[in-house]
């Protein structure tokens, strides 16, 4: 569904990648690997359209993304280094807004997702009182709610404890099985079976 063709990006006079092409089909999980500073985050942001300093073509179901931005955004879920959790609001309120940018959701669904991610009891605490890993979990709970086909996740495993890691891996597996696709960066070794790897080194 997502194809990149001869991507090339340079920052500060340093070529991060060149002639980078890949194809992400339905039901696939693609792990972007590379050492620190190799350009993983940059690549993901380019694919999302958050960064425009690149050359090459990115296509969504064969069409250039620029021609169908809304369509693309409607099926995209991006969680970056900064997870998009407002510190003042509670997890419930946060999700109510961030999910409602893409679809209608009921509070019940949100509460269920939060509980699933081990945040039962924290639904009504303001997010600045949550620990780093708990905030990450709030953001990740969107994965359970949002029906987006394409997940782009930038180091979603940082600050998660081992339960959290297992749970997230599970989720990725399920999403792929149900025909979605995942693009993920991490320094972890993922234990998913059909896992493709794109190395930037």
């Amino acid at each position, binding site marked *: 569904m997502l194809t990149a063709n001869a991507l*090339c990006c*340079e920052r500060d006079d340093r*070529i991060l990648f060149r002639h980078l092409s890949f194809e992400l089909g339905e039901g696939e999980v693609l792990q972007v690997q590379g050492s620190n500073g190799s350009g993983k985050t940059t690549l993901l942001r380019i694919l999302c359209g958050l960064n425009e300093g690149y*050359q090459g073509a990115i296509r969504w179901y064969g069409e250039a993304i620029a021609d169908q931005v809304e369509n693309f955004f409607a099926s995209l879920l991006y969680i970056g280094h900064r997870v998009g959790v407002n510190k003042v609001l509670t997890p419930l309120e946060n999700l109510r807004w961030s999910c409602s940018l893409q679809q209608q959701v009921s509070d019940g669904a949100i509460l269920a997702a939060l509980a699933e991610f081990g945040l039962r009891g924290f639904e009504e605490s303001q997010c600045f009182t949550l620990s780093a890993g708990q905030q990450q979990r709030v953001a990740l709970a969107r994965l359970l709610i949002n029906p987006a086909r394409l997940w782009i996740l930038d180091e979603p495993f940082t600050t998660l404890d081992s339960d959290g890691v297992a749970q997230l891996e599970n989720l990725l597996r399920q999403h792929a099985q149900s025909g979605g696709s995942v693009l993920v960066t991490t320094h972890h070794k993922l234990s998913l079976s059909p896992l493709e790897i794109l190395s930037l080194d």
Partner: protein
Amino acid sequence: MLAALQFSSIGEFFQMGGYAFNVWTVYVLFLLFFFVNLYFPLIREKQIIRELKRRLIVRNEVPANKHD
């Protein structure tokens, strides 16, 4: 031509009919600005070329010909 000259002596010219300070400051400022604005870009150009050459020698990096 000379008949159109407005001043009969150098001294009178510098006095500018009592407005010496004002008239001359403006013209001096103008000349200063004029030369500074030509001089600095030229110096800067030399600096840049020197710096770029130095880098070229030091790193001797392979130029990636992305442009042109």
